[in-house]
């Protein structure tokens, strides 16, 4: 059954979720990617948004001015793995509960999710108009000096998803499990093809 998470998300909302489950999000979701993580973790700057119990989306959207505010045009997830080296302390420092992105993350994020009771989920990559239609409003923007993709866009979302849990609070990592399967298949396949491409004789 598809579960709906509502911000502020509490630990008990996440405890029963397992990698591979599909959920949707209602509430506050903030875009935060490479430089946003770098400013907090490596440069020690305070994040201008309180993320306790909230969700972040690894994404750089297309937005256009709309009256006094902004309108969301297109917002899909970006490759989460780029944030792997910083996500564990990021979760610890901010209290973010739901990290949304694309593709898997690694052991550091798994540890962060376990220690601080958070999860990583993927929104299907490239489905950016679908995601934009699930953003009810852009409430504000911070760090716009970073440019459109890297700024922190504070969004109010309704039934945002599908979100596929990739890392749960128990240490399960869907993509690492899948990768192990792919790699286990690889050796035999490469050997089979190699037999047929010995063109240098």
């Amino acid at each position, binding site marked *: 059954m598809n579960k709906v998470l509502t911000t502020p998300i509490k630990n008990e909302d996440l405890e029963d979720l397992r990698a591979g489950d599909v959920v949707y999000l209602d509430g506050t979701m903030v875009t935060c990617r490479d430089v946003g993580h770098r400013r907090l973790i490596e440069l020690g700057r305070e994040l201008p948004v309180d993320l306790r119990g909230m969700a972040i989306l690894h994404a750089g959207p297309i937005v256009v001015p709309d009256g006094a505010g902004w309108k969301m045009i297109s917002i899909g997830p970006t490759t989460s793995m780029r944030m792997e080296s910083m996500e564990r302390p990021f979760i610890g420092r901010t209290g973010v509960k739901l990290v949304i992105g694309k593709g898997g993350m690694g052991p550091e994020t798994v540890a962060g999710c376990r220690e601080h009771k958070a999860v990583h989920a993927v929104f299907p990559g490239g489905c950016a108009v679908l995601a934009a239609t699930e953003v009810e409003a852009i409430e504000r923007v911070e760090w716009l000096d970073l440019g459109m993709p*890297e700024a922190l866009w504070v969004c109010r979302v309704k039934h945002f998803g599908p979100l596929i849990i990739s890392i749960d609070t128990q240490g399960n990592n869907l993509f690492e499990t899948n990768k192990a399967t792919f790699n286990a298949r690889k050796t035999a396949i490469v050997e089979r093809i190699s037999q047929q491409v010995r063109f240098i004789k």
Partner: protein
Amino acid sequence: MNDEQNVLFLKDLMARFTAYVGKHLPDDVLAKLKELRTQEQGGLSTVVYDSMFENLGLADRLDRPCCQDTGVIQFFLRAGAAFPYLGELRENLRAAVAAATIAAPLRHNAVETFLEKNTGTNLGLRVPWIDWDIVAGDGLEIDVYMAGGGCTLPGAAKVLMPNAGYEGVVQFVFDVVTSYGVNACPPLLVGVGISTAVETAALLSKRAILRPLGSRNPEPRAAEMELLLEQGLNDLGLGPQGLSGNRTVMGVHIENSARHPSTIGVGISTGCWAHRRGTIRINADMTHEILSHRGVTL
């Protein structure tokens, strides 16, 4: 139309075409995705494919870029030596990108290196990237390509020793796809360049993913290797978004050149499922035909 009007027309045409390519997948990619969708069964594959097709419908209906990452705009030209507006073409294509960025709208994706500032226009040093191939005739054929960061990230090239053979190429392709490829929005289009050096192989690998899906390398052995790699990568079973399934790729294309006897240069480029490639043929009198999206007029 006089020359001045033709130059202006060309700019407007390319601005409209660039914006269009960001919102609509080409015919061959769309057909392949429909086919691949039928070959996946249930579970997360269905969740993902449903979202993909719902998204394409929404992008069309709302007239918006189907993926938010509209890339650094790249133009691959096959420019007739006698095309009358060659001298103006570079500036014209830059102006077209600036116009499309506002009209589409496209994401701002040109960050000046070292300054580390986003220009906010999609124009920057050597951006849009333009690749020139001068051919006979007075026409102009342009591939517009926009790749997101996600499917650009797996790109790799290296130079193998000849003893590694084509077997070394196979290993390299599989290593790239099972590592970075998983996060690059499969099902992928994998381009392989086989040549002498890193830059020649890398360029050929990019040209490979600009070929229409289903086309085959004219050299029978290369065509056979394309098929073997396709079947082999599909046997890995990455599935849509790497969530596992029955298929990994939309296709594998190889482009090749003769090589130095002492080296095998190999390059790999990957295209994501949202493979936004458009091809347009423009004649000297500005009549034109869109080859990638049949029946479309701008």
